[in-house]
């Protein structure tokens, strides 16, 4: 039961100040990247592993991933053009061929125009996203925390967190 509520609990904890705004911003940024990139390739797997492996707020990242997955489908036309331009760049062909010919090369999925385009778009947006998220969380976290503490649901979720910590102890 506790396992099922963990993402919500962590997100509530993040908003209440358990994680720093930088961790939240990094989670959102990685989630944004994961959401934008089509799944079913090693790039998406690597982004997922980074999200779950690095010391970032994965709840914020997952929320961002879901949100940007929905947005990502509308940007396919744009990302396809970006990816096609990059993948057809003559001076990069040697590098692409070398990567593609490596073991697991075709599984990376970088030769797909939308994957490449969305990855580049995600990288391009990563710093603004991080900066904006960090700024927002720094500004909004105290107010949101005060607001959320008034609700019983938040207290229940925090209680679950405390219980979990007590069990771990």
């Amino acid at each position, binding site marked *: 039961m506790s396992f099922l509520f963990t993402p919500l609990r962590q997100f509530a904890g993040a908003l209440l100040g358990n994680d720093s705004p930088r961790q939240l911003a990094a989670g959102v940024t990685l989630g944004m990247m994961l959401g934008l990139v089509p799944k*079913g390739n090693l790039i998406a797997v690597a982004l997922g592993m980074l999200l779950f*492996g690095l*010391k970032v707020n994965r709840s914020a990242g997952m929320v961002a991933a879901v949100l940007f997955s929905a947005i990502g489908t509308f940007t*396919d036309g744009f990302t*396809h053009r970006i990816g096609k331009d990059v993948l057809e760049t003559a001076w990069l*062909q040697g590098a692409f*061929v070398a990567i593609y010919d490596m073991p697991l090369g075709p*599984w990376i999925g970088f*030769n797909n125009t*939308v994957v490449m385009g969305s990855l580049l778009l995600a990288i391009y947006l990563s710093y603004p996203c991080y900066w904006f998220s960090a700024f927002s969380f720094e500004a909004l976290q105290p107010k949101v925390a005060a607001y959320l503490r008034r609700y019983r649901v938040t207290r229940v979720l925090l209680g679950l967190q405390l219980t979990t910590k007590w069990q771990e102890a």
Partner: protein
Amino acid sequence: MRIFRWGYLLPRLAILCVLWAASEHGTAWLLKWSITSAGPALTGARVDVAETRASLLHTRVAIKGLEIADPDQAMQNLASVELVELNLDTAALLRKQAVVNHGIIRGLRFGTARETSGELPPTEAVAPRATRSHVARDATAQAAAYAANWLADVEKKLSLDARGQFESVRLAEELAAKWPAECESLSAAAKLLKSGVEQLTVETKAANQNPLRNAEFLRALPGRVKSLQQQTQDLQARLQELPGLVEADRQRVIAARERDERFIRDQLSVEALDASDLTAYLLTEQLDGPVRELVEWLGWARKIIPSKGQAPKFERSRGENILFAGVKRYPDVLVRTIDLHGVAQVGGRPLEIAGTLTDFTTEPQLHGQPLRLRLVTQGPLPIQVQAVIDRTRETPRDELLAVCNGLAIPGMSLGKPEHMSLAVSQSTAALQIALLLDDEKLTGNIELVQKSVDITPHLAQRLGTPEIQQALTASLGRVNEISTQVVLTGTLAKPQVQISSTLGPTMQNALHSTVVAVIDRQRERILASARAQTEQHLTAMRSTVDSLTAEVAPLLAQPEQMLAKLLGPDLAQPFSAEQFGRLPAGSLFK
């Protein structure tokens, strides 16, 4: 600062290991699901798998109890396999390719019985193995039908009795009935005339006794005599005309007889029977099934391994996969070699087969090598089969070669029992099959040489005259070997078949000349019978007329003389002075 949260990572690594272990089974399940769901789309019937095992770690796949149902027979398998073992190339898997360097198929069987129906639900049903070819409806079938009609026609001619239809016989019968009545009438008229003349003579004599009293009679006598003379002359004229009339009737009968002869010659003429027609008649039904089966297998192979552009592609739905210049493309699925071991039923007996299947791929144009199948039987019946399915070019090309020596052919009946059939004994045969399907163009040659055969002809009752039976038996008794060749042309959808065999010319030589001779004799017999009938009637007619002439001529001659006497000097001066009571000149007494 610690970047990695080991307390967080380690449990997830453990979960990953569990997932890895599950994937071993998951891959097997996925493989089974792929085979059973994609198989029916290719074969047109159910594809069942008993068990699958797949190991990503060892890159090995095993499929147990694979059964491919026959789309034409729901309770029978097209092929079944006990075990398929495939060793996948690990390096190729890392490059997103399924390459089997070596595989083994064990327990391959064809036409085994199924426990459950292999029929697909109506919504999933796809076209059967191949559309039924029209092998039996082409020129060969027409030739067979022609030969069957020829035999039926011969039967009809042999049993034909056209005497009732002869005009000459009918006319001769009519005339034979007419002339006796005519003669009777003439004879009666002659007799009546004679009696009339005799009566007149008597009456004249009586009248001459007393001329005065019979003056009226004597005055009318010359007229009556002349009338009787006229009647006599008429009868004589009719009698004289009789030979001419008889001759005219005879000529009519002869003319009718000539027409009858022409009619019967037309009716009993035998058209030439071509040896190829007879071959088609004897062998089309026997060969139609196997030839159609072969063509259907080719069609099935064409459907299973489609040509360029028809192979199913599972494209990524988002974006486009760029093929970089300089990247060598390999097919996604490639089976380099598979050893085959199994059992096949040939000529009703099971034979162990072994062979290899090489270069099977979903993208043959990338691979550049055609699929090759080599099968060899082991045991007393050596059969070699080689198939090349080439999809490397723009147009697909399928080739099949099969050689079999010592094939046991069971006894069989050729032809149709209602006309003529041949009972061919059990024999051994050498079979060679060479088929080529280049795009849609079909060419093929099938040769079958049967040795040590005994052939017994069976003829329908009407056709089975001792003479024909004897001629066929003698001719076929000399045949010890039958060589049959089937040439296939046309297209896969509309194959054309030409059948030639040594059996046809042998039969044609024996049958045609004998039948022609028998029918010639039949014709001559019918004509002779008709001639005899007409001659009999004509002779009877002639004799009737002759006897009438012999009978009537004297009857007419006598009255003529009598009438001449009546018209003698007495009638010249019917009423002399003496007759009226005056004495003749110089008479002393009155």
